[in-house]
């Protein structure tokens, strides 16, 4: 049995422990070691992506116990895709933190790796209770990271963030234990089999469990009415942390896709499917309005995170596989663009002195052409202007919605929100770059500070250039999700290795 699937969990774990030790003895080594670990993680994730692209589902039995009795990790195309995305984002955030952020408080590096470990674990696990555990791992690390740098705003934002997530965790446990009480299993593949055979008398309990899980994942994905914490929390976080957090809402979307394509499928059990489209559209509409009213650049980026989660959820909620293919293409590009905007917001804020990210006229920027160009690129991608990847993604979602139930509503809301986001960006851009006095305050940024933003934006452009092969991959990933028998067979069919490497 190959051990590759567990490396994305073990590598950050060991790196975090090592970084904790280094913090005491060799603080200067922390950054290089962390960078090395994150880069190695990226290489491994790309390797897993390559394997998942042509192979089927790889199941890994932890402790060599056969499913459903032991814990299983499973890598399919979607998992490999989001793992790679996490690694790319982690590398960019770390590079952005390298100039000065990581020294602003204690334990940044270990927490960073723990957060990556929690994310990877949540994407890899094929077990509902372990999904809860990895959620908690990534949340505990995220509380620490959110507080990184200190200050009253961060304290209050994290008080709300922690409370909401604790209530979410309680609901998650209720949903999971309801499922366990009815079916007697927690393995997602086994649940898929058992839930499909459940007697009609148990349907009410199963529906309740499914909806509880939807509430929890919706809270993580910042879906209306549970998403109003997001702009405040993300705009309070330091920029590299907020950029890394851009993947956290996608964990919620990922869990929704996973659970509601695997376990709650079919006419008897599809409780969440009819809710996803309206919830997604409402989130998108509110986030677009929020973007129009945002008073600072980080807040604007926060609302865009919400908007991307809403778009994704609406696309996932469409019937037909073409919208799902489009959503899987939209997911990486929007995550990269939002993260780039968070990092860019900080670069702009530091050149504006006391005004920081507030969207009012102020002192001129030191490097207006460079920062403005990057802002234009990020804005065009996020608002969905051609020829950037955001346009390709939105176009595909619109095409996937053609002729489907609710397709008209999706067209209307998605196009209007694109328009609203365009206005929001024009307003922000004109105040930041044009309505300026000649005075210049802040420091010039070196190449090092620009690299992560450049990298993220370039990755977005690359996604548009390579749209055809990427779409072939997401198409295959969507087919794999819509035919869950492959996943179920791989997980339940994985056999433990006996001593001497013999499989029974």
């Amino acid at each position, binding site marked *: 049995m190959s051990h590759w699937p567990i490396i994305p969990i073990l590598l950050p774990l060991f790196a975090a422990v090592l970084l904790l030790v280094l913090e005491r003895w060799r603080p200067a080594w922390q950054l290089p070691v962390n960078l090395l670990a994150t880069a190695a993680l990226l290489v491994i994730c790309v390797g897993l992506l390559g394997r998942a692209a042509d192979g089927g589902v790889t199941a890994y039995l932890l402790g060599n116990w056969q499913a459903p009795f032991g814990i299983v990790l499973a890598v399919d195309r979607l998992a490999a895709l989001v793992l790679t995305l996490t690694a790319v984002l982690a590398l960019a955030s770390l590079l952005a933190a390298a100039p000065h952020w990581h020294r602003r408080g204690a334990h940044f590096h270990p927490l960073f790796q723990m957060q990556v470990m929690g994310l990877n674990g949540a994407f890899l696990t094929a077990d509902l209770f372990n999904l809860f555990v990895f959620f908690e791992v990534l949340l505990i690390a995220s509380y620490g990271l959110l*507080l990184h740098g200190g200050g009253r705003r961060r304290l209050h934002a994290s008080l709300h963030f922690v409370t909401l997530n604790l209530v979410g*965790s309680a609901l998650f446990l209720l949903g999971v234990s309801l499922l366990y009480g009815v079916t007697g299993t927690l393995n997602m593949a086994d649940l898929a089999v058992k839930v499909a055979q459940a007697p009609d008398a148990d349907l009410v309990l199963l529906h309740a469990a499914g909806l509880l899980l939807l509430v929890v994942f919706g809270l993580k994905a910042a879906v209306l009415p549970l998403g109003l914490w997001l702009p405040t929390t993300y705009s309070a976080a330091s920029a590299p942390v907020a950029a890394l957090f851009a993947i956290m809402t996608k964990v919620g979307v990922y869990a929704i896709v996973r659970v509601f394509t695997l376990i709650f499928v079919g006419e008897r059990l599809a409780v969440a499917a009819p809710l996803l489209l309206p919830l997604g559209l409402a989130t998108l509409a509110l986030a677009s309005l929020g973007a129009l009213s945002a008073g600072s650049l980080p807040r604007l980026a926060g609302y865009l995170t919400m908007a991307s989660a809403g778009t994704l959820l609406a696309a996932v909620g469409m019937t037909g596989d073409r919208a799902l293919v489009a959503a899987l293409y939209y997911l990486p590009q929007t995550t990269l663009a939002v993260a780039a905007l968070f990092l860019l917001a900080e670069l702009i804020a530091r050149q504006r002195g006391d005004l920081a990210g507030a969207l009012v006229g102020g002192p001129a920027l030191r490097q207006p052409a460079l920062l403005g160009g990057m802002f234009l690129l990020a804005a065009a991608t996020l608002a969905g202007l051609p020829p950037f990847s955001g346009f390709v993604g939105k176009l595909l979602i619109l095409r996937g919605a053609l002729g489907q139930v609710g397709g008209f509503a999706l067209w209307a809301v998605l196009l209007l929100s694109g328009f609203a986001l365009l206005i929001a960006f024009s307003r922000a851009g004109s105040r930041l770059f044009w309505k300026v006095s000649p005075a210049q305050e802040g420091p010039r940024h070196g190449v090092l500070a620009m690299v992560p933003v450049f990298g993220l934006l370039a990755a977005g452009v690359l996604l548009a250039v390579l749209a055809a092969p990427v779409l072939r991959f997401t198409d295959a990933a969507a087919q794999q999700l819509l035919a869950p028998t492959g996943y179920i067979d791989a997980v339940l069919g994985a056999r433990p290795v006996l001593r001497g490497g013999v499989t029974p």
Partner: protein
Amino acid sequence: MELMIALGVGLFAACGVYLVLRARSFDLILGLTLLSYAVNLFIFATGRLAVNRPPVLAPDTATTLAQYADPLPQALVLTAIVISFGMTALLVAIALAARRAGDDDHVDAGRQEPQ
């Protein structure tokens, strides 16, 4: 016993929700603790309620399902307790710091950020 457990879960959950909605950091922490008690009892109950049955194989007991308690919910409860304990400790620390920074234990104390 079923009724007792159900009433206990309901009572804890109701008190927990009430306290969480009070929006004072001390009440909030107390409420979240009660909520987690309710959830832990609920998890425990999902493995059938039985008295005096071991969760591990015992030498002098017949190996039928009726003789044993389900060990898995007990393991899950253990994990959930550990996690919620850690989270509560963290929340206490954050609440204390926020109390000091805002001079008030209201969860929205001293907020004057620009929207």
